[in-house]
């Protein structure tokens, strides 16, 4: 029974995530997947609770076997009931496990195996980044003469628990306190940072992809044969390669395709963040904005009531009214089937908190330091303690290890085999990138409690942010996003691109890299960031980030074209 539902659902799922159908055309492959899903679902507690409830109620009502069957089918068909939960779960599970294993294709995909080459090149870049990070980690450990992890004494443990909100800075050497770099003030560009890997390292890694091969083989073949591939996926090699700071080109989505995919963003629709601020010209009477908000809230309430993550995502494409954002984000993100979400949150929170008290990790110092980003920002300073707490929970959450496609060549997400007391270091399997706090900051606007904020953060990290910190061949990975930015900007406004790259000598990617990497935190105002992330969740893709970056550059085109120095561009491009 459940298998049938899942198989049927999988069909929808497949459409939803926009998989190419032919990937799974094989009937047997589909069946196999359905089986995996079913197994997963059966391993959740709420499956059994729900099953018991259904069985009981159905048995009570049915008098004949025929009726029993009818009732069971009806019970499953109820979209707000079990069906809905299974639906949400399947979408999430697919997102987490299947989509992660996909790869981007090279631009000239003529089946000559260059896809494999690019993957190798990406791998090589990832490995050298990995080496760098590990070297820094070891050096840090030596310089601070601190082990990677240390079991706290019982007394220390108690002190940690007693210190309110992890203000436990006893272990933080004061020389490490850095105060003056924070996002809203330009990130303190040239400050020496205590970190394993910062935005500059990542940008360098992205640019390094394929560099060596290119140097060796002279100019990489720029054969740009323009034959559109069958199906939706256009190639537009014509834009690739004529200016770029990347050495390898892979398939990206063209502006036209984006227009189709993101059609709900068209201004013909009403949007939260735009139409809700409309004021009437008249001195009295209701503002059209308020009218729209009221109507939108009604729709959003309906989506919430339906319990469908799909409905929530559809709504999110037009933005979410702030009052409903926490619940709608939860609906889109937290589809783990649990009997009671709040209990689940509380249990996870307590467990991690105990873990945090037990071990003093080297990376804790880094995240504590990073949390200072919040204290120095006038939009987020009230959340400093919460950001710190969220990050401390994150470093020891083995859940990350379970759900992330960890890869030994990615230091920022690697299965390295250090173990302390036979548990791996760090427990999460992920090392923090510099600026990790930035991702936690907007999340605090949604949840007053660290537990709930953390659950949102970790899910967002697993789905999205992790991809921003690793050089990989995944669609929606950092490399792919950078390339997408270049392609879209070139197509949208070649004149600006040319002016920046050639006249000013400023690679557009250099300008916007941080915007993309940090999901616009610190670039846009808090509210704007949340509105953007609404859409990221709605479309379930990070590709909106490079598109937004390109849009911002185009939006500032006049100032940029007039600017005659890099500094001026940097000033006028900042919103």
């Amino acid at each position, binding site marked *: 029974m459940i298998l049938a539902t899942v198989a049927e659902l999988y069909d929808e799922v497949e459409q939803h995530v926009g998989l190419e159908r032919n990937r799974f055309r094989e009937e047997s492959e589909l069946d196999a997947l359905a089986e995996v899903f079913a197994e997963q679902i059966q391993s959740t507690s709420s499956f059994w609770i729900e099953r018991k409830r259904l069985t009981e109620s159905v048995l009570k009502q049915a008098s004949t076997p025929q009726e029993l069957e009818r009732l069971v089918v009806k019970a499953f068909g109820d979209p707000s009931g079990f069906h809905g939960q299974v639906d949400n779960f399947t979408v999430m599970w697919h997102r987490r496990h299947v989509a992660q294993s996909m790869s981007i294709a090279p631009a000239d995909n003529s089946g000559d195996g260059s896809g494999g080459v690019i993957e190798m090149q990406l791998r090589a870049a990832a490995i050298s980044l990995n080496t760098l990070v590990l070297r820094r980690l070891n050096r840090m450990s030596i310089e601070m003469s601190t082990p990677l992890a240390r079991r706290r004494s019982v007394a220390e443990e108690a002190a940690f628990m007693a210190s*309110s*909100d992890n203000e436990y800075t006893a272990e933080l050497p004061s020389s490490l306190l850095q105060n003056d770099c924070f996002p809203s*003030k330009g990130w303190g560009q040239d400050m020496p940072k205590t970190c394993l890997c910062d935005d500059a390292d990542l940008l360098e890694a992205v640019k390094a992809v394929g560099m060596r091969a290119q140097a060796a083989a002279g100019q990489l073949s720029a054969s740009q044969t323009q034959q559109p591939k069958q199906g939706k996926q256009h190639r537009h090699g014509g834009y690739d390669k004529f200016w770029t700071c990347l050495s390898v080109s892979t398939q990206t989505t063209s502006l036209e395709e984006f227009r189709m995919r993101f059609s709900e963003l068209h201004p013909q629709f009403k949007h939260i963040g735009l139409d809700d601020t409309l*004021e009437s*010209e008249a*001195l009295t009477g209701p503002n059209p904005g308020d009218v729209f908000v009221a109507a939108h*809230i009604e729709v959003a309430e309906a989506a919430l009531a339906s319990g469908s993550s799909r409905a929530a995502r559809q709504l999110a494409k037009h933005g979410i*009214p*702030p*009052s*409903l*954002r*926490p619940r709608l984000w939860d609906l889109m993100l937290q589809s783990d089937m649990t009997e009671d979400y709040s209990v689940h949150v509380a249990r996870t929170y307590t467990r991690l908190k105990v873990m945090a008290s037990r071990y003093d990790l080297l990376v804790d110092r880094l995240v504590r330091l990073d949390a200072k980003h919040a*204290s*120095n*920002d*006038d*939009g987020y*300073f*009230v*959340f*400093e*303690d*919460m950001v710190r707490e969220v990050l401390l929970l994150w470093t020891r959450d083995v859940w990350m290890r379970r759900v992330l496609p960890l890869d030994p060549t990615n230091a920022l997400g690697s299965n390295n085999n250090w173990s302390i007391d036979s548990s791996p270091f760090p427990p999460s399997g992920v090392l923090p990138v510099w600026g990790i706090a930035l991702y936690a900051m907007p999340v605090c*606007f*949604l*949840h*007053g409690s660290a537990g709930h904020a953390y659950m949102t953060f970790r899910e967002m990290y697993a789905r999205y942010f992790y991809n921003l910190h690793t050089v990989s061949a995944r669609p929606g990975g950092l490399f792919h996003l950078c390339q997408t930015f270049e392609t879209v900007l070139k197509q949208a406004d070649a004149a600006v691109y040319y002016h920046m790259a050639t006249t000013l000598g400023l690679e557009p990617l250099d300008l916007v890299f941080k915007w993309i990497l940090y999901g616009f935190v610190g670039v846009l105002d*808090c*509210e704007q960031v*949340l509105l953007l992330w609404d859409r990221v969740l709605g479309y379930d893709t990070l590709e909106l980030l490079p598109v937004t970056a390109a849009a911002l550059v185009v939006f500032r085109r006049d100032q940029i074209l007039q600017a005659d120095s890099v500094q001026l561009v940097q000033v006028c491009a900042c919103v």
Partner: protein
Amino acid sequence: MPPIKWFTDIEKSCLLTNFEKRGWQRGSEGMLLAPDTSSGSSSSDSCVVANRESLSTDDWNFYWAAPGVHNFRAIMSPESGYRLSDAQIINHFPNHLELTKKDLMVKNIKRYRKEFEKDKERMAQTRYQYIDFLPTTYTLPGDYNLFAEEFRKNPSAVWIMKPTDKARGIGIFIINKLNQIKKWSRDNKMQWSYANCKDTYVVSRYIDNPLLIGSKKFDLRLYILVTSWRPLVAYRHKQGFSRFCAVKYNLDAEELDNSFMHLTNVSIQKYGVRELDALPRQKGTMLTIALGQEDYNENNGGKWSFKNLVLYLQAAHGHEATQRLLDEIDSILIHSLRAVQSLMTNDKHCFECYGYDIIIDADLRPWLIEHCLINDIINLVVPEDLADAKCGKGGVAGKTKKDWGEFVLLQDDATSDKARRSRTPA
């Protein structure tokens, strides 16, 4: 149209840059006060009389005055015989103390509330129903007995003592025992020197369950601009902010004297902001730090924009609760202005900006703490076209919203009166 000429006795660059930005020119004060600045000690009256003839020589449209200083009093005093022309405006009403002095404000609002609650018809007419927004307050030593009685009724309550003539948290302390304020009791009253009654205090019920964000107490600062009292025309600026305490809040008795935990305006000092000495003991001077351009503190200074607060409240408490809170805040703004509406000197040459301190408690109920005068954040409090408008170049009311920049019309009796009048004959 000649450019607007400004004059000020607060030579602060945040003001000067602002005038410049508006394309205004420096005017002059004329002869009126010249002798005073040189001799210093001569009494104001004699000086005004002496200069009466030369009054006409002063040359400004827009005077940004410090209300306590001599110039302002001289201009506004009825005896001075000083006449402002139609093209002159000044940033204070002569008797603003009715609103900005703590004890007078309390007295006026208490009286107004009684009237309002009696007047059932009026109550029914307005959408601003929230009137019980002042924490229970007494003036000491005058109301000591009343206070003592109230205190004994609820001995576990916490109260806050504030001198009536100081600002910026100076002299404020929190009490939870009556004997802490023996000095103000009846027995001591005799020794009280009423003549120079310096030590008058108000004692207010301490809002001991403030809404906390990030475990910290905060208050809300909003700005209101009044351009006319009768009819009442008032605007609210969109950019308020909340000021956060530096230390996490708790109500432990031994922490009651920790002002970093209890007084939201003191936290500003801890964040290392320069003291402003331009106007010592002038209410509201700390505010420059807030948004006056030059004094803007790069670090957050414990201030969070009103916009962010609302964004957070929406998510944490929902749309309805937030909307109710915002409506109740508007209610506070309107009623406190109404409370002094009939007392204020309605000089058409005057306008004034008030900063409101409001505390939100854990039940999301707003309480009025105080009003203060705003002296030096002109960019914030004066709409671009105010001077044009008031200097006889067309009224502010009746313009479209676009012209007000960041201001929202809070109350406009002028227009609604007109509307009512035009409706009646029809």
